[in-house]
């Protein structure tokens, strides 16, 4: 059995009285492509935000390669409002910041593209190299780390070649066509040397041809960079094509999990997506 990379245990995320994510358990193993699907508003992006440390969960535990990166239980007035289970199981409060989690090897893209709008394609990817820089503030500010800076630039250019954006390296990032912006976001995430990549609706707004290219692209980078991939996607063709396993969320709850074939024939999933037929 391959090694467990990401492990979610009874994760609940509650905003006031609204339970966005309800008692979700999830496992992602080394080298897998796992998809997280569900109707709009099911809480998929919230799960991503909990995993990457943008939100700290109301209750539950998240671990990355065996290390707990987030764990919490309801505090203060949330104790009364809390509407999910496992309330007293998690006693610690652990809350890693997003940058720390990124440094541990988990990178992500965003549903609504968040590129650095004033920067070029090249600089967008180069920024992600900053966190691994060895030179201190003064060495960097006084440009004494020439060799390191040159290495960072070289690696960035190589990465741009891999993702096929080297031709537009000097363009302002937000002036690129939509499909290329998505690709650039993935390149920027790869630039942090992740072992795990989280893609939030990578195919949103793409035409069928672009989507097909994307699925080949995801496979290619997965093999090349030895990645584990967790993705949110609405495009079922893409999901069924590339994922090894699928988790289905509905109203914050995990209603099904399994291989694409299993999910396609799961009655609960069909109900969630198509609604109940009245007989």
């Amino acid at each position: 059995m391959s090694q467990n990379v990401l492990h979610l245990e009874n994760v609940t995320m509650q905003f006031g009285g609204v339970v966005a994510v309800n008692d979700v358990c999830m496992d992602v193993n080394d080298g897998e492509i796992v998809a997280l699907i569900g109707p709009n508003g099911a809480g998929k992006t919230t799960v991503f935000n909990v995993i990457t440390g943008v939100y700290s969960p109301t209750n539950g535990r998240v671990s990355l390669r065996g290390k707990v990166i987030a764990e919490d239980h309801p505090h203060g007035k949330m104790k009364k409002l809390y509407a999910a289970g496992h309330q007293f199981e998690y006693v610690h409060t652990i809350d890693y910041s997003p940058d720390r989690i990124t440094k541990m090897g988990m990178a992500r893209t965003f549903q609504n593209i968040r590129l650095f709008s004033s920067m070029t394609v090249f600089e967008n990817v180069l920024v992600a190299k900053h966190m691994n820089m060895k030179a201190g503030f003064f060495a960097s500010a006084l440009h004494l780390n020439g060799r390191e800076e040159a290495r960072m630039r070289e690696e960035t250019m190589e990465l741009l070649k891999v993702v096929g954006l080297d031709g537009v390296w000097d363009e302002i990032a937000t002036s690129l066509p939509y499909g290329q912006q998505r690709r650039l976001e993935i390149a920027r995430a790869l630039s942090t040397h992740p072992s795990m990549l989280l893609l939030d609706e990578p195919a949103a707004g793409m035409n069928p041809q672009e989507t097909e290219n994307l699925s080949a692209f995801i496979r290619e980078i997965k093999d090349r960079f030895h990645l584990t991939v967790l993705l949110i996607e609405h495009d079922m063709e893409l999901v069924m094509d590339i994922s090894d396993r699928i988790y289905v969320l509905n109203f914050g709850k995990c209603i099904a999990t399994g291989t694409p074939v299993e999910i396609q024939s799961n009655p609960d999933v069909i109900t969630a997506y198509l609604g109940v037929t009245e007989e």
Partner: protein
Amino acid sequence: MNTASLTAKPRKKLDRATVIAIGVIFAIYALAFVLEQVIPSTSMLFTVLKKGATYALVAVSMNLLNGFTGLFSLGQAGFMLIGAYTYAVFTIPVAQRMSVYQYYNGGVIQFTLPVLVAIALAGVFAALFAFLIGLPVLRLKSDYLAIATLGFAEIIRAIFQWDKLGVVTNGSNLLRLFPTFNDFNIKDASGNVTLHLSTLIPFLIAGVCILFIVMLINSSYGRAFKAIRDDETAAEAMGINLPRHKMIAFCTSSFFAGVGGAMLAMYQNSVQAKYFTTSMTYEILLIVVIGGIGSVTGSCISSFLFVACSEWWLRFLDQEQTINGWQVPLLRNGFRLVVFSLIIMAVVLFFRKGIMGTRELPDLFRRRKPSGKGGAKA
């Protein structure tokens, strides 16, 4: 390997435009030096140049924070005050302390530091205060941060006038008799000036500081600052530690505001806390906005224009004048400020992005539309 990768891979080399820009800057310095030897030192020009250099440094330091890191801070006057006081307190000659601190029995500090050490110390103290107030305040965003830093500037001004601290700060009395820009002039035995340096020195101090800021902006840290400005969430997801980088930007900006404060002290020959009001911060903010938020060159140009307008070119509007027996209407004391406000409104209305936008000096010598990578100081 295509040409794109060849130009991108090596460190940014000095291209033609940057070389021209550096040449222009050297020419300006040379011109300042020559003018100072030729024109009598009482000319208004030198007042403008000295104060302009001081304001340019402070404006660039504010631009580093507001324009490049996206932190809207209004504490500049407070940090300048700390810098000005630090400089003054440590450089008043021991022999003069009795007369300066006449109500405080000569004060407690009975030693004098060299001028350059005191200037550096002015920056260090300002940065230290920035670090302390940054710990709580930098958690705030946009307007809230602006209000908190504004409050700090007001509080620090009150504290420095506090009677109990008078043994150090001289209370609400003037600090004076410390070395000023004029003391850099080289004199012969009889006291006649042989070489005027009182304008070149502030230019050099400001130039070195601005050069450091420009190099910082073009370094990896500068890119991280811009990333934070463009999108905090994405920057954090790219592994940029927000609290740390915001603190670095805040302390660096304050350091140079402190140095600017020391320069202001040297410019006006005396220091008094009540001079460092909020309106001073607004003047600096105005300079930054007029010059272009995110342009170092813009801040420098507009600070000289601003100082020249407010101190020199518009002065005639304050005096009643008669031409051939005809009394020119409206000209009276205070009219200058009206015209000044109108000019500022016109600039803000018609040059939304300021004089330079986000362009830098070398971009002016480039044909292609630049991408905002300025390479030289101004």
